[in-house]
């Protein structure tokens, strides 16, 4: 896995709304992401969607710096070149209902300036990857919710992005599709930063190499799923300066998903206690685990 930093965010703030409704959806957020699947976790209103939209260059940041692939998102002259390498699936997306699935993906291949000579193959590959090759001729309006979601993923993939931003990609997918989708994510993340906003712990356990926990517009913890699970098994203490220790020896019989869930709630509780001024927690790795392998802790 490449150690190159693909996404770098420092002191990001995003102010949404005007007047009385104004609020800081993202407030003083720092983040550095390399290749891998990064699970973005957090309660509703934590700022996950806002962060993803800013990373997708759709929403301009109010203050702070963001560079994707070494390019500042506010650099208008390099925006076009940058956007060729971004894939984005928003939480809700519209579509022209009379387009066929294939036309929908072709349209985005064109918008993303995929060279015409390569576009046909790129569209076929994207449709196959999400399992929609046999529905390519169907109109978008005839698709079910899960299929629409997969069509949305297909358009995000079509340009082979190096920064792939997926907001709730598994919503509406049935369990079998979710499994296939997670292996697709791992495959894509070999040389790309894949950011997946999700609230499903199975997604984190099954697909993510890293986790980023958000609360009230900032990052409260970073680590790996195994680290989060370890925190859940053993209990977490930290002194408010981002130094984190584990108490207890942990119960080995705990499953990975439920351990992650307990780690998640534990970290959030700790973050709420220590308040907005505290530095993000760096989750310690379990001693025997190899870094970044989500399945390594499953058998423990």
């Amino acid at each position, binding site marked *: 896995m490449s150690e190159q930093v693909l996404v770098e965010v420092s002191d990001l703030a995003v102010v949404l709304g005007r007047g009385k409704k104004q609020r800081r959806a993202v407030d003083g957020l720092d983040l550095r992401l390399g290749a891998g699947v990064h699970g973005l976790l957090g309660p509703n209103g934590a700022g996950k*969607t806002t962060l993803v939209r800013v990373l997708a260059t759709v*929403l301009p940041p109010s203050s702070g710096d963001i560079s994707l692939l070494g390019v500042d998102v506010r650099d208008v002259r390099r*925006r076009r070149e940058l956007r060729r390498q971004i894939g984005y699936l928003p939480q809700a997306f*519209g579509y022209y209902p009379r387009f066929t699935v294939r036309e929908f993906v072709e349209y985005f291949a064109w918008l993303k*300036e995929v060279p015409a000579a390569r*576009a046909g193959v790129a569209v076929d590959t994207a449709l196959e990857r999400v399992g929609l090759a046999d529905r390519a001729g169907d109109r978008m309006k005839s698709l079910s919710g899960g299929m629409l979601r997969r069509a949305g993923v297909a358009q995000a993939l079509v340009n082979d992005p190096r920064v792939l931003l997926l907001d709730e990609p598994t919503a509406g997918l049935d369990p079998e599709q979710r499994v296939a989708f997670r292996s697709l994510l791992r495959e894509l993340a070999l040389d790309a930063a894949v950011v997946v906003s999700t609230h499903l712990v199975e997604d984190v356990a099954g697909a993510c190499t890293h986790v980023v926990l958000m609360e009230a517009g900032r990052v409260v913890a970073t680590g790996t799923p195994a680290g989060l699970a370890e925190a859940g098994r053993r209990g977490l203490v930290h002194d408010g300066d981002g130094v984190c220790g584990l108490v207890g020896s942990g119960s080995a019989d705990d499953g990975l998903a439920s351990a992650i869930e307990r780690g998640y709630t534990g970290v959030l509780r700790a973050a709420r206690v220590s308040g907005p001024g505290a530095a993000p927690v760096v989750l310690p790795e379990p001693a025997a685990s190899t870094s970044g392998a989500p399945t390594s802790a499953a058998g423990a």
Partner: protein
Amino acid sequence: MSAPQPQPQSQPSASPQPWHASPALLVAYTLGRLSAADAWSAEAHLVSCPSCRAELGRIVDDVDDTRDVLALARTRVLSQPPPAPAAQRLGQRAASAGLRRAIVRVGARSGAPWHLRWVVRPASLGAVALAVAAATAFAGISHVVVGATNSPTSGTAWLLWLLAPAVPVAGVALSGLGAGDELELELATPSAGWRLVLWRALAVVVTAVPLALLAGWVTASLTGPAPPGLVPPGTSGVSGAWLPVLWLLPALALTATALALGTWLVLWQAAAVVGVVWLLVVGVPSLVLRTPSSSAVGSALDSSATPFASAWVVHLISGWAQPVWLLVLAAAVVVVVVRRDAFGTVKPSLTARWTTGGGEA
């Protein structure tokens, strides 16, 4: 009677006893070992004899070589899509699919197959054409029913004059509206921004303006010489049919203003603002300041009912107004050029849907 007869008969033609091919003959045929003449005659017989065909089928099943060949042929045949019925193909050709294919074909020849197709398709050109057709129909009906001429100074034709310059603006609004929040997806792509917006606006203008001019020409061609108030200085004696040319500058200026405003607002909302302002400026004085005779429903459509409305529309479009429209157009173009990069990011929406992301952070 219908049982296969293994022995070949010596007189196949006249005999009441039907002749049947021997198994040896069929095996030889199956394996391709018959001479050409024998194979043809065997085939001629097989075509007319069901029992020999059945026997051939059994033999083919028993011969290993042919089984593989048949299996291969079968999969190849099945993997090809069945040909569409001729009627269905004709129907498709007649419908919009035909137009689309024609566009793609033209595009492919010009070396830009993608471009034209994707610019034109979401641009709601059909709605634009429909709007123009509706306005024309209205003017035409009023002409027939009321007997009014379609000069803007009389009858209800002033409504067409009122709406026509705003038609491209409506088209631009529709082209930006599309399916709702697809803009969020499009915005994250390198094509997002002024290129896409301008291409689409161009597609709308190229469709709407000639259609509007044609509609105006059709409805106005029945009128005589242009009324004095409409004629630009120095061009007396112009035929009424050419009057809709006066729409051109206002239409372009309104469209460009919508685009300029679209650098601050969501495009369809910007177009809506321009459209509403235009209708207010032209429509409200026309409707409110009618002559008293127009209060009766029966005379509302009468040619004498709307002199002020007509005069107001005429003033806004003709004569001295044309240079003003040119100035508006130029100013709007300057704004669009200077602020073109603003098309590439999300705009504060009047309905606040885009900035808050639907309420979910």
